[in-house]
């Protein structure tokens, strides 16, 4: 059974009496451990698809099944809980809270999950060690470089051990080299068994993922790069999960 499944999902907006079909009868299946990119020009419905995949929004028509549960009719409170436990968000502009330290930023999702203070600290530190920022716990986000900030954001996305990582243009504000580091991080995460969704408008970035979903005028078309998919499966099978291998 698929981890996340969209069944004939439509999202329709009404603006000024005009009907806009941001998503038009989209069906999509995502499995555990997949590394997938969603690509499309702006205005294609890409953001809408991302919002529905990220449980930030509900479809007008159709069903969304997450982990075997239909969440199309969930309340805002239930959606918040799903976002908290099952999905990790990474944003283009990092979206770290400027007044909190790096450690507190990473602890935040656990605060909303109701996890006790000492455990929070422990897990946040572990997540930051994983992205090799264990030495910057007390710093403020604005004292870090862009790449470091994005790694903090990834640590934050990981800390509640979500099944899905949803990254919206994660390299958009970074230079090419740092962007590659971040993309590599995502690849490792998917090899470890998490589903990583990369939303981008840049075909070069989409090219690193084995599976690409292109969206245009609310309709999706899929393409699977068999070579990359094979490599990906191999890597996963080889259990490369030992280390994430971020260059210092």
């Amino acid at each position, binding site marked *: 059974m698929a981890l996340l499944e969209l069944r004939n999902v439509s999202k329709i907006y009404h603006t000024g009496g005009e009907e806009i079909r941001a998503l038009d009868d989209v069906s999509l299946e995502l499995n555990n451990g997949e590394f997938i990119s969603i690509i499309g020009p702006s205005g294609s419905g890409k953001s809408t698809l991302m*919002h529905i995949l*990220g449980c*930030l*929004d509900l479809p007008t028509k159709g069903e969304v099944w997450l982990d075997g549960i239909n969440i199309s009719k969930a309340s*805002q*409170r239930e959606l*918040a*809980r799903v*976002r*908290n*436990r099952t999905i990790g*968000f990474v*944003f283009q502009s990092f*979206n770290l*809270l*400027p*007044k*909190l330290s790096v450690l507190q930023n990473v602890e*935040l*999702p656990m*605060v*909303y*999950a*109701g996890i006790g*203070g000492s455990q929070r600290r422990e897990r946040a530190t572990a997540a930051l060690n994983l992205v090799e920022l264990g030495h910057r716990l007390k710093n403020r986000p604005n004292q870090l470089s862009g790449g470091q900030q994005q790694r903090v954001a990834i640590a*934050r996305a990981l800390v*509640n051990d979500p099944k899905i990582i949803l990254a919206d243009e994660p390299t958009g504000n970074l230079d090419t080299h740092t962007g590659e580091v971040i993309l590599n991080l995502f690849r490792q995460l998917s090899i470890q068994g998490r589903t990583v969704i990369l939303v981008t408008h840049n075909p070069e970035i989409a090219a690193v993922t084995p599976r690409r979903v292109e969206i245009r005028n609310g309709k999706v078309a899929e393409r699977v790069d068999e070579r990359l998919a094979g490599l990906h499966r191999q890597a996963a099978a080889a259990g490369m999960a030992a280390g994430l291998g971020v260059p210092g």
Partner: protein
Amino acid sequence: MNLINTIVIGLKEIWAHKFRSLLTMFGIVLGVASLVGMSALIKGMENGMRESMVAMGGADKVLLEAQAVPAYQDHLADQAPGRTIRDVFALREGAPLLRVVSPEMTVPEVILTRGEKACDPSECVGAWPEVLEMNLHTVEHGRFFNAIDEERAHAVCVVGTGIRDALFGSPDEIGREIIPIGEKIQIGGQPFTIVGMFQHYMGEQEAKERALARRTPKAEPGSFQGPKRQKGWGKRGGWAFSRKNMTVYMPLNTAWVRFRIAGDLDGIPDPRLSDIDIKVRDLSNLEAALQQARNVLLVTHNGIEDFNFRTQENQVESINKQIENARMSGGIIAGISLLVGGIGIMNIMLASINERIREIGTCKALGATGTEIFIQIIVESVVLSILGALLGLLASGGLVEVLGLISPTGNTPVVTWQSQAIAVAFSAGVGIVAGLFPAVKAARLSPIQALRYE
């Protein structure tokens, strides 16, 4: 989501905008300071009023008043006996619920003289030793009259310090205290010996004035000092105290023999007392005690109701009423300033959530529910207002000090913990109310729009 964490985040938010937060808090600071200062002033006033009340004999003193006979007994009016010493003996024997019964016979329109000096006492009455307990007098020098003085109608008197000041000179003027025990004065032209003097009664206000005078250096003798202050009733404020200091007491029998018997125009001396004051044994049993006294008096008065009781309850009630009014008006004014402070907080909270729309969106994406966002904003608002309230308490200390300095002779403002608690609680309430609208607004933000907000 634990509360401490929320409070810490709220404090950080406030600390991040120190100046803005301080300005916002200022409204609450002023509101709390004025609330506490106002109630301290009123408390001081209340203390002053109660002090005067005690000077007049305390709350448990009941006056037995003469009154016109009721309409249905009008035909008996000429047989009304009035209040006489018979009543006093009857009450003493027949009304065990009464503790003290004190008869008084006023010597009217009398002037005290000693050589060239003369003065007009506030009251010159013949009384029994019970009067000491009734009117809460303390004999500091000499003695009070005894049964022999009473029996033989000795020409002795006990005076207040005000009389001493007028006839012998006050300590302020001559620099030493004269104790006129054994001295002779004329009361209404008749020689009396002073056998005792009461202590000097003064309110807190006068006590403060005296302390102040002691601290300020005395002017050089011979230097120009300006006209002397007027003396008399208005002197030193607190009329209850100055009145009490101008008392002259003599034995009841003396007043009767020396002034009343010869004093009446048609040759028949008036046996009526001018006052009978009583104190009941137990204030909580006031009604029953008064009923008992009424029954006894109806016997001695042949059933004619030419008397009435006046309790100090009215007095207490009127003091309470005045205090309540003062509190109410002061409280409303301070409440309005707190409300204005609350509007400031609401304003700043709205600005603050507008600045943080993206942050709120991020928190929602990370799994914060609307309730959690709501609580966060409310807590921030309450933290802001409580910080303001605590600063206000500090400021109120200064304010009360300044009020005390401005009016050194007024009743000292008394800061009560109740007023502080009310002020803090009220500003916390204002904080909650002020935070409601911004918090609801923030909680309702759609995460998508909040994340997109630039």
